[in-house]
């Protein structure tokens, strides 16, 4: 999909700090019959990666990066009416970014994909302390847990969370994703049953759809 024009327009709006313009770009994109997953993967994700590159190469400040994230999170809230489905199943999923992980836009998108597949969700956001997560999960007994990790150096935290869950909540289905698991860093997962790596929203969506068929 070539969404270069829209990407440039969204990038300009975010750099300018104009929530209004950014909202307009999103609205037009959706009006062109693109799906929410297309919007997330091709427009918002790509534009945020570009924002990251501009910070990395010293072209924008941390403040501008924060501004862009804040606008994007607002835009995602604005389109919630397109995500919420009236016919919820009984299934419940808990979604969060792991302990110390401050990046939460990816996990918020993941939560929306569950909702679009008629799941009930509890989205806990960024930096969820391991012990609190375990208590919370025990208290509401979800069918799935989805964890996001953006930085490779949070792998020890991810593994420690998986180990605790294996002991205390054996059998819980866990989906993990995020940029920190690129380049084969997810290989250690073969030591875990019930833990699956999904690199993007498309693969998560297909996985949830096959789950729906099994129900």
């Amino acid at each position, binding site marked *: 999909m070539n969404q270069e024009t829209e990407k440039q327009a969204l990038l300009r709006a975010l750099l300018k700090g104009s929530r209004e313009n950014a909202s307009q770009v999103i609205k037009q994109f959706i009006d062109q019959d693109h799906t929410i997953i297309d919007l997330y993967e091709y427009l918002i994700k790509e534009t945020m990666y570009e924002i990251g590159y501009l910070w990395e190469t010293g072209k924008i400040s941390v403040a501008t990066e924060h501004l862009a994230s804040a606008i994007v999170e607002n835009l995602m809230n604005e389109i919630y009416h397109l995500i919420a489905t009236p016919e919820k199943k009984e299934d419940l999923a808990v979604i969060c970014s792991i302990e110390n992980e401050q990046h939460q836009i990816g996990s918020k998108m993941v939560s929306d994909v569950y909702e679009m597949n008629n799941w009930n969700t509890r989205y806990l956001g960024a930096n969820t302390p391991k012990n609190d997560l375990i208590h919370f999960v025990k208290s509401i007994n979800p069918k799935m847990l989805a964890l996001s990790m953006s930085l490779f150096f949070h792998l020890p935290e991810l593994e420690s969370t998986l180990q605790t869950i294996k002991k205390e909540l054996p059998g819980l289905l866990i989906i993990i994703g995020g940029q920190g698991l690129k*380049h084969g860093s997810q290989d250690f997962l073969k030591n875990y049953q019930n833990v699956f790596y999904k690199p993007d929203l498309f693969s998560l969506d297909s996985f949830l759809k096959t789950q729906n068929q099994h129900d």
Partner: protein
Amino acid sequence: MTKDVLTESANHLSQACCETIEEYKNKSSLLVSKMNASMLKKSNLINIVGSDNIEMMKDNHANHVQFISSILKYKNTAVLIETIIWVFRTYRSHGFSIEYWSVQLNEWINILKEELSQNIFDEIIPYYKWMLLNIPSFVLLSEQNT
């Protein structure tokens, strides 16, 4: 030098054992505070890291030990190389000098020697020597595609 050559040499670095990972990790805060202290003592620090960059330097040191802990545990050559290229590009574009890499890595080596048990130091040091030796390649690679 291409990434392939770096990959080939990095593949010879061995995965650390549990004890090494534990000791490095447990001493991380100490290593970082000694590292920051010794860099702050340098009279030419501003020339090395650029003005207004002390906090960013400290962030880098904190991230460095977390990153190395993870690399020691989950050895991953592609992540090692890509992350070093990323670090070089990011810090250079924020005003750090090329000299920062050799100063920093030599300083880590001194501190690790002081703080780690000999056998643990021996296991970790090949990583630092490899990074030090390959600074010129990382500088080149980080200047491409910008």
